Every structure is written in C-alpha cells, then in structure tokens.
C-alpha cells in the first residue's frame, strides 16, 4: 500500500469516506479478494481439482450420512429432584443475587442469575450507583472464569496435594516461630484492599506481629494518581461527575474504558452528550493522548503527542487558565502560532467560558505531577465540588506500589524474609518490573505461600499453593469506586476447594480457620454496634437490629450511606472493638481498641517525572491490554476472542506504531519487531494505527504467558511478545530510548476488522451539532430510502407486539461489553485464533469501527457501530432458505430454527449485513463437564453445521410474554431488556415494542437522526441507528473538514 493510492482515492470520492482498515482505504488487491469471498479462505475448501465427480461423491456420502445421523433415538434422561427443596426456589426459574466482582480490589456491583444453583449470567446491580445496571467486559466474563477447567484444583505443598488442615498447621507453626521475633521475617503481599473486613483482619495480623510487613502491588495500578492523592492528605482521591461537565479535557486519561469508575462515567458522559427531543445541548470532549484510546475516539478534538509531552501541555494549559502550576520541568517552548499553542488557547478559552461546568482529568498512566496539575486547573476553574469531588481513598492504607514491591524484593534479597504470603493471585514473577528479578529473589525465601485462582508462573516457584475462591464462591466485602461498601456473597460452593484471601490471612490471627461468612458477619456485627460507618436504611432511619440491617444489605448487595459522597470514611486499617455485652454502654470512642499499626511504607521514590529515562530513540508506552488486562484474564477465552477495540485483533498483543513510522522502517502489519529498551529486549508483531504519535510505540501487557492455562499459554513463537520484559521500576508507563529493529519474521494476526465489510456504503452517518441544528434532514440526506411500495410481497401485519431496536452510535463508546454479554446469554462458543483468521468468529453482535481522515492525519476520527441482526422487514435471508429454517415471526423477528437448519448457508450469503454465523466445526465444547452448568438453559446449545444469529434475546421476550399473559396484561416498556442493552454502560442500545407509540424505542425512531443501514436495498431493517453528532470547537475545526459535500 502507498499513500499515493490512498490520496488519489480520497480525492476521487464524493462526500465523506469512512473506512475500517488501512487495507480498505488503500483498496489493495488483497483487500478486494478478501472482500469477495463470503467466508475468507473457506469457499474453495472443497473445490478439489478432481472436480465434479469428487463433488458428487462427497454430496452423496454426506446425504447418506445426514440421513443416518437423523436416525438416533433420543437418549433417556433423568430427573433428579431435591431431597429438601430450598425455600424460594421455583424449579425452572432463575433467582438473582446481589453481589460484587472485585477488580484490583475495587468492587463492581452485580446481580448474578442463578439457575438451580448454577450461576449463569452476571448483570450490573441497577440500584448501585457505581453500576446502575451495567457492567464492563471483565465483569461479564467473570462467569467463564468461575467455570474455567484450568483453575488451580487443590492445595499443594511442593507439588503434593495436601488437605486444608495440613496447610493450617504449617501456617500455625510458621506463625508461632515468627511470634518470638515479633514477626520480623513475616511478609504479606497483596493487591490493594478496599474490603473493610479484610483490612481489619490485616490490621489484627499486623498488631499480633508488629515487625511483620504488608506490601501492596498491583502491576496496573496508578502510582502517579496515588502519590498525588497522598500528597493532598485525607481528601486526595478524585471522583468525577460527568453529568455536570459541559467541557471535558483529558490529559492522557482513558476514563471511558479504564479504571474502577468507568462504567458509571460512561453512563454520565453519554447522558450529557445525548441529543433528544428535550435535550438540545451536548458536552464537548478534548482528548490529549499519547496512544489512541476509545476515549480519544469519542473526543470532538483529539491531539496525539508523546506521553512525556503531556505534562508540558498540562503546564501550559494551567498557565493559560491562570492556575498555579507546581514547579517541574519546563514546558516545551511553543509559540502561540504552533499547533500546541493554538490548542491551548482554544481549550483554555472554552474552559474559562464554562467555569464550574468543566473538568480536566489526568490519566492513570501519567506521573503525579500531571495529576497535581489537573487538580490545580480544576481548582482554578471552580470545578471542585461540582464536576469533581475529592475525598478519602477507598483503599486501606494506600501506598506507592512500586516502592512497596521494591522494598519487599530488597528484604528478600537480604535474606530477611522467612515467610512470604502472596494473596489474591498477583503473579509477580510474571508482572514485576524486570529489574527487580523477582523470580531469583523468591528462591531466597524459606517458606513461600501462593494464593491464587491459577497455578501460574509465580505459583510454580512457591512452596505452598492455595487455590483462591472465585468471587462467586466466597463471602466478602469491598468498596466500589464511589466508596459504597458492596457485599460479595457466594452463588455456589467452591468448585475447587478454594479459600478466599481473608480466610488464608486469618490463619495468622488468634482465631485461625474462620470461614469467610463468619469473618464478614462478625465484622459488620461490630461495625453496626459502633464504628466509623453511618448505617441507615433507604429511608434514612437507623435499622432496628443487626438482623434487619444484614438482611437488607445482602438483599441490596451493598450498604447504604457508605459512599464517600454520603460521608463514608476512608477504609479503616484498624481493629474495631468487640460488641459490648447486652446492656453495657457502647464505647465512646470508635477507635478505642485500635492497636498500633505499622504505617504503610512511605513514598520513597520521588514523583516520577516525565524526563525520566534515557534520551533519544523512540518513546515506549505501556498499556494494559484492553481484553486480558495484565494477563489476569489470559485464560478467559471470551476475552481472548473479543476483538480489541480499534484494531480488532484477537488472541494476540501487538505493538502499535504510526503508519508513517512503519513506512519509514519498511514495516507491515504482522511484521515482528525486536524492541530494545534499557538493556532489555522483547519481540512483538506490529500493527499500524492511524492517530498514533509518530515517534512512539505502544506495547500491551498480558501476553507471552507460559503458565496461564490451556487457553492463555503463548505458543512457542509468541513467548517473547511480553511487554513486562521491558518494564523497569523507574519507568512504569513510558520512557525514551526505545530502539526497534525488523526481524524479518512475520506473525499471523487474527484481526476481524476486515471481516463482514459493507463495501463503502457509509453505514455510519455523522454531522456536527451545528449542522444538525441548522438542518436536521442532514442525516436522512446521507442515504437513500426506497418507497415502501417497492416490493412484490404483501406487508406483514402485527397485531400484538412489533419488536425493534435503536442503537445510538453517538453514545456507543466501542467498549464491546455487548459482545461479551451476548456470548454469555446465548451460549456462543469461542472458535480459536485459526478459525477467527478464517472469518469464522461466532459473535452475534460485533462492534465495527469506522475511521475518517487519512492515515497520516493525526486527528483521525473513529466511530463505533454495534451490529446485531437487523431483523429486516423484507429479510433477504428468509426468502432463500430451502428448508424454511429462518422465518418471519408474528412479532417481526427473523426466527432461526436450529433444528431445521441443514447448513446451506444461502441465508448468510444473501444477508447484506453479514450478521449470520455458521458453525463450520463443532465449536461448542461438549466434552468439558465443568462448562455445562455455565450455559444458559433457556437457549439451545448449537452443534456443528448450523447457522445461528441474533434473536433479540427471544428467550427473554418469551419469558416476559408468558409472565405478562399470566397476569393478563401487556408487556411493559423496558420489561424485556436484551442482553446487549442491559449491559451497555452508555445506554446506547434500546429495545422495545414499535407498536406502542409511547415506548422509548418508538420515540427514538422518530428522531431525525434515526436511520437504517443499507436502506437502499429495501430490506427495511428493524434495528436502526441514531447518527453521531459531534460538537467541535469552531476555533479548532479545520474549514476543509466539513462533514458532507453533496
């Protein structure tokens, strides 16, 4: 490909060109060929050179076999009733339990659907302010993590299976040995803890062993943000309120997809930008970022710059709005006429025009100085208290993680660590900074205990392995990002003899071997009697007694009034007093029995400065992988197969480079490069990403795992694709001095970006807010709708319901939670990398990305479009099925009947939207017993040779219809939520009855920015889209980039 062909193509086209990949943009012959195969590389598989005779032989054989295959008798099945049926359980109906899935210690509130004791699906907890019914992809996929057959199966000591009792006695004897030395050789390593009950157990352990130390390490945690917060004292942690922000500026912050608050932030941000009949204004987002993110893709203005330049930009911005900027490296000298000067001027003007209604956010991967700058700007603009509030940390004993781990490794090296207990599946052997040499130092520890879900790289080097209990198997509590205490309750007994972190930790207390339930209940019994919390019921009254409080907390899944906004305290790292005996007065001071607690290690490293590291060479940027994070989800097939946002690569890590840099170095997508950085080397296949800063390379953590499990282990040729091999403790997120070299090897990448392309028929429609206000018809004019009479078939009549969907692509952030929710709800199998590369991925709803601009243009715009089945009124698929396996239902769905399908694939061939999926092979895992209870019993598990597709979650429609009929009423609007709609954090997907003019979906479809994709084909899609509206700042919008030129 060359840029000349791209430029000539852009010049010759009319209107705006949207493209999905650089291959499409350049219109290369390879892309053409790819496009014209229905299923890439597949169609000709049986085209044997022997020709017709071979074909006939195969056909007759398969016909005969098909006949024989149908001749099986249905196997006899059993019914196994309960001996004593649990109360409230109605066989055949699910129960929902409120719980939480912690992520890096912070709770993600959920409702878990349980069928006869099997958790099958996770939804957000609609009453919890951190969720409001939505979840992110990781939380959705946690259900597969629960049933993962590769989980650690037993307690082992040096590889031999041992019972819990033996582990307990080993810990007791280790504890009594340490007792004499005040715990001088005892160390604990865990991730951040927000759980009040676990923090209390930790405090009591530290009180019993005053010389013992607790180290915290989370490889993806933001030490920069934490250091800035700690410097502010008790109220340093920001919580953003996007529902009040009209102008948002991010300094390398990916707030829409990263961080514990992202689900709620997406919701507020989308609401603030949604144009409806009532709402005519939208917020404006400026993204200054060092690597393309989904937040940058949503921005009205996006400026790419090196990560080390962000601080200088922030300092200039602070200067322009009159905020005091703390001393630091001077900003890059810029004259006002330069690009940066222009941006600073325009943004500061906009910010000052929205004092108290604007917001500046520093990115988690930026150093403390940038966070301090953002805070200073927000203060100067009067945003504090309105769009951002600062409060105490939800983490107990927040500390600098890098320093804390380095402290531990130093002690290990000096032989001071006799007993090391690693809690919660941290895997530092894989993820610790490479200069610490954690694996070598671990060998000097006399007794190492590893507690985690998997027998991973670290577990292999430890003496004791204790399987962790999955959050769906254990009792516990944790705080959500807003501070609300959220309760974790088990949905199922531990499948693999797991014990939660707090249960392992209690072995070092005076009451060892307590179970999670007892620990939790005991903690909250005392907290209820008197503690730092203000516990109130929903109407603000105190509870009558503990039982009333506890039942309510378990029912709701959280404890009201514990949010930071409601005055919730920092998570105390102290021991609460025992419950006073009946009649005795409560202690007057809350902290009466607080023992002396070892203070968390002070921040020893100076705030990381942008100038750290060697100069010259390229800049290296580290990021957690968007689907497998730091490798903790490596063995989760759903997340591995989820196309990564923006690149749509599955199953692999890539190094992102700007297309121009790739051209200079002669690199194509999939070329393996060697990255040399500060004496360390790693390899990675490259991917060209428009909008990436020119002189930077972004690498993603989470790959190159060797002991992740059957799904996550890296193949031999990909073991070096590990970004942790390059990470040093002095530059955790970016640094200069990277050299890259082409190795000449190529690595096949399975990217779905070019699958199912709609051949440039402008599936996304975009206008600026101003254009839309001036002429709302501008959206309609971007396409063509044929008259309704243009069909030979009679119209369908719908007397009852008429289902339809509207997807607001202006709200969609491309997070892909819908895809995972659909996989979980509809028993969709994973197919593996090779099959994905052949275009055989099975996802019923995909998220397409379209880009506008040229590859060299750093202000590339990206649009996201979730594509489920359109459920067309004039459905092309229905007409061509020879066995009537796909038919039009009385409520407008294009039904797919698996048991009738014979696999001709005519329907898929005829589908212009390419939303049908075919089981070329037996993708569904029918052998692994542990996966059986995970499947949704309300949806067929499809076998080989069957076409499948989105059904609008017809199982949910049917259940709602039956429930409504039993109560002699109609289905209420919002009673049926499709899985994708329910999970969507930005409420972009709305489903409902089109026959009801008052339904939300009917109202959305009346909006003038509503349009159907490929309407020219007269398919009359039932899923329609609401066009994207952008809100650019006229001062920054280049005149040449007006949206439509018809």
């Amino acid at each position: 490909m060359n840029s000349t062909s791209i430029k000539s193509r852009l010049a010759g086209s009319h209107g705006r060109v949207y493209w999905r990949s650089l291959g499409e943009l350049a219109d290369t012959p390879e892309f053409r060929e790819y496009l014209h195969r229905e299923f890439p590389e597949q169609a000709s598989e049986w085209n044997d050179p022997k020709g017709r005779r071979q074909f006939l032989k195969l056909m007759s054989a398969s016909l005969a076999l098909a006949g024989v295959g149908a001749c099986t008798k249905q196997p006899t099945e059993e019914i196994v009733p309960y001996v004593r049926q649990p109360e409230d359980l109605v066989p055949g109906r699910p129960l929902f339990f409120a719980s939480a899935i912690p992520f890096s210690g912070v709770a993600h509130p959920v409702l878990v659907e349980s069928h006869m004791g099997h958790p099958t699906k996770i939804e957000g907890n609609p009453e919890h302010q951190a969720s409001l019914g939505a979840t992110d992809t990781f939380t959705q996929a946690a259900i597969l993590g629960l049933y993962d057959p590769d989980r650690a199966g037993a307690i082992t000591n040096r590889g031999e299976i041992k019972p819990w009792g033996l582990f307990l006695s080993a810990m007791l004897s280790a504890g009594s040995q340490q007792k004499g030395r005040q715990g001088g050789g005892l160390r604990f390593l865990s991730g951040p803890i927000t759980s009040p009950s676990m923090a209390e157990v930790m405090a009591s352990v530290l009180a019993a062993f005053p010389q013992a130390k607790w180290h915290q390490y989370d490889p993806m945690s933001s030490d920069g943000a934490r250091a800035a917060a700690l410097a502010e004292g008790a109220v340093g942690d920001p919580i953003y309120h996007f529902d009040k922000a009209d102008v948002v500026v991010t300094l390398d912050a990916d707030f829409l997809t990263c961080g514990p608050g992202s689900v709620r932030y997406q919701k507020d941000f989308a609401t603030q930008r949604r144009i409806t009949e009532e709402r005519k204004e939208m917020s404006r987002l400026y993204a200054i970022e060092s690597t393309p993110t989904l937040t940058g893709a949503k921005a009205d203005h996006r400026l790419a710059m090196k990560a080390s330049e962000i601080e200088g930009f922030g300092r200039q911005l602070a200067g322009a709005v009159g905020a005091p900027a703390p001393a630091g490296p001077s900003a890059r000298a810029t004259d006002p006429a330069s690009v940066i000067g222009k941006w600073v001027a325009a943004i500061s003007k906009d910010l000052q025009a929205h004092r108290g209604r604007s917001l500046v956010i520093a990115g988690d991967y930026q150093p403390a100085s940038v966070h301090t700058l953002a805070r200073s700007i927000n203060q100067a603009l009067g945003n504090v208290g309105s769009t951002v509030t600062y409060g105490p940390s939800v983490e107990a004993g927040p500390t600098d993680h890098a320093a804390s781990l380095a402290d531990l490794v130093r002690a290990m090296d000096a032989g001071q660590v006799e007993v090391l207990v690693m809690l919660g599946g941290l895997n530092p052997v894989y993820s610790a900074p490479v200069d610490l040499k954690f694996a070598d130092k671990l060998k000097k520890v006399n007794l190492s205990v590893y507690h985690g879900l998997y027998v991973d790289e670290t577990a292999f080097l430890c003496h004791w392995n204790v399987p962790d209990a999955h959050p769906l198997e254990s009792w516990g509590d944790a705080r959500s990002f807003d501070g609300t205490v959220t309760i974790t309750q088990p949905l199922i007994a531990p499948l693999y003899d797991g014990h939660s972190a707090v249960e392992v930790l209690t072995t070092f207390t005076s009451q060892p071997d307590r179970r999670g339930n007892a620990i939790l209940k005991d903690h909250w019994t005392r907290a209820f009697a008197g503690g730092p919390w203000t516990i109130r019921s929903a109407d603000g009254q105190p509870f009558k007694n503990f039982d009333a409080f506890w039942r309510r907390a378990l029912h709701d899944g959280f404890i009201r009034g514990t949010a930071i906004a409601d005055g919730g305290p920092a998570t105390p790292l102290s021991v609460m007093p025992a419950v006073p005996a009946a009649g005795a007065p409560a202690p007057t001071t809350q902290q009466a029995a607080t023992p002396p607690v070892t203070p968390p290690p002070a921040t020893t490293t100076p705030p990381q400065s942008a100038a750290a590291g060697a100069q010259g060479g390229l800049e290296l940027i580290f990021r957690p992988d968007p689907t497998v994070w730091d490798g903790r989800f490596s063995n989760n097939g759903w997340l591995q197969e989820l196309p990564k946002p923006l690149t749509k690569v599955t199953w692999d890590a890539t190094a992102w480079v700007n297309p121009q840099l790739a051209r200079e170095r002669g690199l194509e997508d999939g070329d393996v490069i060697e990255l040399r950085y500060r004496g360390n080397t790693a390899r990675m296949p490259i991917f060209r990403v428009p909008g990436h800063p020119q002189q930077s390379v972004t690498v993603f953590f989470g790959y190159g795992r060797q002991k992740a499990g059957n799904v996550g282990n890296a193949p031999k040729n990909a073991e070096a694709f590990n970004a942790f091999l390059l990470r040093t403790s002095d530059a955790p997120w970016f640094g200069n001095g990277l050299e890259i070299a082409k190795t000449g090897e190529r690595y096949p990448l399975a990217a779905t970006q070019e699958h199912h392309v709609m051949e440039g028929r402008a599936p996304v429609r975009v206008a600026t807010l101003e254009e839309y206000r001036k002429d709302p018809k501008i959206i309609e004019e971007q396409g063509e709708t044929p008259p309704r009479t243009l069909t030979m078939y009679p119209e369908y009549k719908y007397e009852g319901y008429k289902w339809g969907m509207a997807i607001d692509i202006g709200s969609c952030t491309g997070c892909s939670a819908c895809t995972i929710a659909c996989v979980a709800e509809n028993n969709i199998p994973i197919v593996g990398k090779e099959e994905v590369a052949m275009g055989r991925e099975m996802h019923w709803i995909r998220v397409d990305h379209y880009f506008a601009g040229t590859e060299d243009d750093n202000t590339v715009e990206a649009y996201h479009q979730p594509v489920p089945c359109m459920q067309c009124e004039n459905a092309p698929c229905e007409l061509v099925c020879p066995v009537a396996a796909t038919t039009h239902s009385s409520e407008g769905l294009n039904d797919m009947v698996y048991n009738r399908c014979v696999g001709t694939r005519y329907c898929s061939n005829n589908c212009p939207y390419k939303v049908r999926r075919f089981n070329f092979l037996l993708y569904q895992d029918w052998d692994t017993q542990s996966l059986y209870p995970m499947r949704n019993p309300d949806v067929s598990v499809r076998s080989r040779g069957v076409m499948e597709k989105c059904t609008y979650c017809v199982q949910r429609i049917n259940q709602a219809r039956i429930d409504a009929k039993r109560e002699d009423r109609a289905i209420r609007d919002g009673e049926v939520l499709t899985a994708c709609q329910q999970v969507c954090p930005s409420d972009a997907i709305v489903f409902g009855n089109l026959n009801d003019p008052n339904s939300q979906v009917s109202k959305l479809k009346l909006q003038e920015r509503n349009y159907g994709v490929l309407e020219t084909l007269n398919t009359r899609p039932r899923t329609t889209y609401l066009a994207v509206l952008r809100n650019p700042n006229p001062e920054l919008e280049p005149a040449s980039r007006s949206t439509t030129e018809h």
Partner: protein
Amino acid sequence: MSQIFHRTTNIYSRLSILAAIVLAATLGGGVALLHLSGYNTNQNMYVEQPLQFSHAHHVGGEGIDCRYCHTSVEESAFANIPPTKTCMNCHSQLWTNAPILEPVRASFRDNKPLRWTRVHDLPDFVYFNHSIHVRKGVGCATCHGRVDKMPLMYQQANLQMNWCVNCHRNPAPNLRPRDQVYNMAWERPANDPGLGERLLKEYNIAGPGQLTSCSTCHR
C-alpha cells in the same frame, strides 16, 4: 441389427419398475411407521423407575391435587418433580415400614436424591412452558391423559411436533374453564358446543400467527 432383448422381456422391465415403486413405498412407509411408533416416540411405554409410584393410588384413590407435588406448574416452565421431603410429609406417618418405600426413606436419610427416569421428554431444542398452558385453560389430562387411572406413569400422547402444532393452530377444542384444569375427570359438556371459542376470547389466547411462530417454542 437384431434386438438384444426379446419382446417378452418388456414385461420384466415393467414389473421391475413397479416393484421398485412398491419397494420404495414400503420402505418409506416402514420408516414412517417406525418413526411414529412407540419405539421412537415412547408413546404408551412404561418406564422402569426407582420405585413404582402409582398416580392411580395417590390421585385417583386419595384425591391429592396435582399441585401438591407439582408445585411450580403455575409459575414455571417446569412443573417440578417433588423433593423427597414431600413424600416424607405423609410417609413419615403412613406406611413407615413398607418395603416398597425403602428408596424414599433411604433418600431422606442419606440426603441422596431419587433419580427418576423422565417419561415426558421433549427434545432439548423445544422450550415447553407449563405455566402458560395451565393459565390458558389447557387441562393436565389433555396432554398427560387420565393420570388418575395410571398405576404406572406412561406417555399418552406421542409428543411429536405435529401433535403440538395441531392444538396451536386451533386451541379451542382443547380448552376448559380454569377451575377445571386440574380435574382429571372433566368432560366437555355436550350441551355447550361454543365453550372452546368463548374461552379462547375470554382468556385472550393469541392467534395462530403467534402460536405457530417458530420462536414460540424453539430458540
């Protein structure tokens, strides 16, 4: 050139064509008969169970209501097979030492469930829902037969799709007043031929369009 075959062989060729047709029809019919036979559908077949529970005794003899054991029939797709506890409600007092009830007592004692063999077994791609049928006035006996007269349970209907769809196309003849749903002995009153049509309206039963949409039962 003379003919290879004599004229008289024509009769053989005609006969063999006829024979082929007859053979194909016989084979086809045979397969169809086998398909619809009890061997395939399990219709009218008795099934070995862990203990020989008699509906005839409990329903016909003692007059126990269906819902005493099949508790979720009005709420759920699944009517429920009672837990051992339900059996022991009575049998901890009655027939406490009867040898035939030993499996029940053993189940309760050892906390091990009874393992019944499914009698009415629809394929896994069919999603039948008891609650809506009961609510719309389809009696238990309509599909399950006179359970009160079955000493051992068997499947009375053939449960083929044809049988389901016949009623979904025209439900009226199989409807009865809601208060008679659990009455095994209810018979259609001869003097009220319009009853089915009336109930169809009164119970607001969907038309054949919705009832025969594929996704109503398959998903």
